[in-house]
């Protein structure tokens, strides 16, 4: 295979969730002969079950296609399938940095959504050429004209040559392939004779191959047996495999300038590979490393506890296994009085958190109690120190605090205008500051600054319910700002329940405290005594509920024959108590805490 740069096209597919990106990718692969019809499972690129089921892409994937264009020339097309969701925008930005162009997929029935915008702006930031593709035109509700207008009005992209297509039926696929060749540029640079220079795009752990590294070669070659150097981590390794995905693994002798593929180099842990690193030849290194990427930072934290405390070790192992392929997952041991031993975990965002929880439960068969998600606060102490607070439980004494800063986000919401009122109110309630409000047709685009803390709680669920699912939402982190934040404690019979402590804005404390107390009142079974449930800031009680004592709980009839039955019932009751936590005289079933922690229906 020749290494003519002009015959290579590296491109990404970007889209809002559910706009048919993976199906379209499948169709491109199939059309180029990468897979026989019988090999086509739906969405071959989403290899995790959870990806296929939820219709989302979590990990970036790359596939090499061979396309014979109308001009008779065979082109090498390297397709990157990127995650659509905001939580994985870090992965998106990585993928985009290794391509020169993008196909922007927009659903012909849905139009431009918040993630479409976010991804498109990232592509533009990476100097991509962009081909708009209006997908799902086989559906009766498809409105190509309207969507094209939206692409122009909302995104500001010329949509006059947008390609109407359908990943499902195959309509427009040839036009799309032709457009990739004619409209997207070949790799900008690439010198066969220069020292090896390649970008480490991603890496993951494969049980058979060890760590697999996804690369984009800039200059020179990567060959089997070559001694390579990772410029940032300064490690040297020998390449033992070079290959590409078609999407099947295909081993090659080498990868040349402009090409994408994978290498393995006897690496056992992904922590040894730094995404964004520059790979060069050990003996003949390039002069300058590539710019690389910013490391991903976990933004949302929650604690995970096993319901069955004996599963703590299993949870630890399982998190370790997930972290093998997910460098953005952070976790640390935590011990809670209410919930036992568990882990404080850091996630890129809410979806990331949900996916990790789901994978732990499904792939590792764990029953988990997640605490309410929270964010990282910056606590500035009067002595000038700044500490990062990951867990409300660790909040230092109020007197030693000068100020607390919380992370903010810039949120973009796209919604049919009939739901605008409700969404404005939601943003207002969540301490939002409006930055922009614009219209395109009957759709409104809302840009708000919001404290991240207000968003992790149940913002997304509320947004979806207010807009009946029609509004879309995306955000980017927008710095820290001080605010009047306090730690609110929940007490049961005067004893704090650590798992329910939270940092809230003072103005929200009473409302949140009352809601939580009311909820606990519903959830805690009545006991022989009355129970005081309180929310407190420092020593001050801001909300209180009293759970009255159980008035009657006794078996009316019990004679000789019932003794065995009665004892068995008691034994059952005692077994249930293993899941109880003691608060003074009061025993609270763990399930009460679990349900109090459940978000969404607060």
């Amino acid at each position, binding site marked *: 295979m020749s290494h003519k740069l002009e015959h290579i096209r590296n491109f990404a597919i970007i889209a809002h969730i559910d706009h048919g990106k993976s199906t379209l990718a499948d169709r491109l692969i199939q059309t180029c002969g990468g897979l026989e019809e019988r090999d086509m499972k739906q969405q071959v690129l989403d290899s995790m079950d959870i990806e296929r089921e939820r219709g989302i892409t979590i990990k970036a994937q790359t596939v090499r296609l061979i396309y014979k264009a109308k001009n008779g020339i065979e082109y090498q097309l390297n397709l990157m399938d990127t995650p659509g969701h905001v939580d994985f925008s870090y992965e998106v930005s990585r993928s985009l940095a290794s391509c020169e162009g993008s196909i922007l997929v927009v659903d012909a029935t849905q139009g431009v959504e918040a993630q479409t915008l976010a991804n498109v702006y990232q592509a533009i930031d990476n100097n991509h050429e962009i081909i708009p593709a209006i997908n799902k035109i086989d559906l009766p509700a498809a409105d190509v004209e309207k969507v094209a207008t939206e692409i122009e009005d909302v995104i500001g992209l010329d949509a006059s040559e947008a390609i109407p297509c359908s990943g499902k039926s195959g309509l427009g696929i040839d036009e799309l392939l032709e457009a990739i060749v004619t409209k997207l540029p070949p790799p900008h640079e690439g010198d066969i004779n220069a020292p090896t220079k390649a970008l480490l795009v991603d890496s993951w752990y494969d049980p058979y191959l060890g760590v697999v590294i996804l690369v984009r070669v800039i200059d020179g070659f990567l060959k089997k047996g070559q001694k390579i150097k990772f410029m940032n981590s300064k490690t040297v390794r020998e390449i033992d495999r070079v290959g590409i995905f078609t999407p099947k693994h295909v081993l090659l002798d080498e990868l040349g300038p402009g090409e994408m593929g994978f290498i393995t180099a006897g690496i056992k842990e992904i922590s040894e590979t730094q995404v964004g690193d520059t790979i060069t030849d050990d003996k003949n290194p390039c002069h300058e490393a590539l710019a690389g990427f910013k490391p991903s930072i976990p933004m949302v934290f929650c604690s995970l506890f096993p319901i069955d405390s004996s599963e703590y070790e299993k949870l630890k192992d399982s998190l370790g296994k997930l972290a093998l392929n997910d460098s953005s997952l952070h976790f640390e041991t935590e011990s809670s009085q209410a919930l036992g031993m568990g882990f404080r975990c850091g996630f890129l965002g809410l979806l990331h958190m949900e996916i990790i929880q789901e994978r732990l439960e499904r792939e590792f068969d764990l029953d988990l109690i997640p605490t309410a998600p929270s964010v990282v606060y910056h606590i500035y102490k009067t002595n000038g120190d700044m500490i990062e607070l990951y867990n409300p439980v660790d909040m230092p004494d109020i007197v030693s605090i000068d100020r607390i800063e919380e992370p903010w986000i810039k949120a973009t919401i796209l919604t049919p205008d009939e739901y605008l009122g409700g969404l404005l109110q939601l943003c207002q309630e969540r301490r939002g500051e409006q930055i922009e409000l614009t219209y395109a047709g009957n759709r409104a685009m809302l840009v708000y600054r919001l404290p991240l803390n207000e968003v992790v709680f149940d913002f997304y669920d509320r947004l979806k319910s207010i807009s009946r699912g029609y509004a879309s939402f995306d955000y980017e982190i927008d710095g820290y700002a001080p605010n009047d934040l306090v730690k609110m404690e929940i007490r049961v019979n005067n004893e704090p329940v650590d798992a329910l402590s939270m940092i809230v804005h003072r103005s929200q404390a009473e409302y949140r405290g009352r809601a939580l107390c009311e909820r606990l009142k519903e959830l805690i079974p*009545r*006991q*022989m*005594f009355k129970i005081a449930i309180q929310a407190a800031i420092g020593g001050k009680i801001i909300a209180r509920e009293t759970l009255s*004592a*159980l*008035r*009657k*709980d*006794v*078996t*009316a*009839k*019990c*004679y*000789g*024959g019932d*003794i*065995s039955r*009665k*004892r068995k019932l*008691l034994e059952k*009751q*005692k077994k249930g*108590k*293993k899941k109880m936590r003691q608060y003074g*005289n009061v*025993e609270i079933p763990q399930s009460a805490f679990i349900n109090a922690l459940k978000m969404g229906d607060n």
Partner: protein
Amino acid sequence: MPDNKNIALYIHWPFCVSKCPYCDFNSFVAQDVNHREWLDAYKKELEYYYELTKGKIVTSIFFGGGTPSLMQPFVAEGVIDKIVSLWGICDDVEVSLEANPSSVEYDKFIDFAAAGINRVSIGVQSFDDRQLAFLGRKHSAEDAIKAIKIAAKSFDRYSFDLIYALPEQTACDWKKSLDNALSYAGGHISVYQLTIEKGTDFYTKYRRGDFTVLDDDCGGELYEITQSIMEQYGLPSYEISNHAKKGEESKHNMTYWRYGDYIGVGPGAHGRFIVNGEKIATKGHRAPDIWIKKVNKTGCSSHEFEVISRKDRAIEALMMGLRLKEGIPLSRIELESGSSWKEIINPDKMENMIKEGFVSTKEDILIPSSKAIQRLDSLLGYLLTE
């Protein structure tokens, strides 16, 4: 503690004229019952248990059911005579019969008395015809009053049952009903709160939403009202649902609650007695025809002779003992468990309960307060060690 020479005898007659919708007892509606055959089988099973409990003396006999008043009196007589000839009975033996207030049955009261029955417990349930219809009872309030009058003449002692906490029953309704019922009271009344048991007709109806039951708050209120009215009337409670003048308590049931020994004869009857230092639990086969066959073949229908562990004995003793106003001696718990009561009851929790006024100790006796008795299930769950 009860003298371990004493033993109580329970005889189960499993037949009824009709099945009441709230009842989950082992009862069957049957047309042709061969009374002679039943008497013979009872005698056989009595002989079987006698071999295991020789040397004991019978302090009470209880004919329960089902509806044992449907029995022909010669069956009761034959059973009583058999018991006398095997174990022998104490001087103040209590011989109770459960009866329904229908004319077929109260007309036989005098014959039952002649057979040796000296106490009758009548399933009145209510003195309101509408409530009786809801409860699926075949008798009227008038029948009930008549039955009580005849019972008072025929037997040394009588008691009757009432059911309250019926759907939509208010505190005011219940007060009136109870006041009225008390005008017919003798020395003993059992007052039960309606509970919906699995497998009953009411359970199906309740699940279907045909009616609702009172919540625990309302139920609790009615319970408290019952306690105070009965007390004023001189019939204080001695057990959760049982009220009596002093000395009029049911001796037989007290054996259960004091965790004494008892033998159960008849289909589905339970027994618990000590053999060679071990407490044995027996359980008769529930189906009448199989019970008869088994007894005729082997002398006994119980398919399990479960040895109750020392710890479980202590738990059972505590569980039953705390149903009683008199409470239970801690030494009794230790006698059953063979170890310190602290192995059974969490001492810290007991301290808590004393502080909160749920229990008190008088010398060695653990006494539940009335607020503890009405929350006993929670209390037990709380007190017991893990």
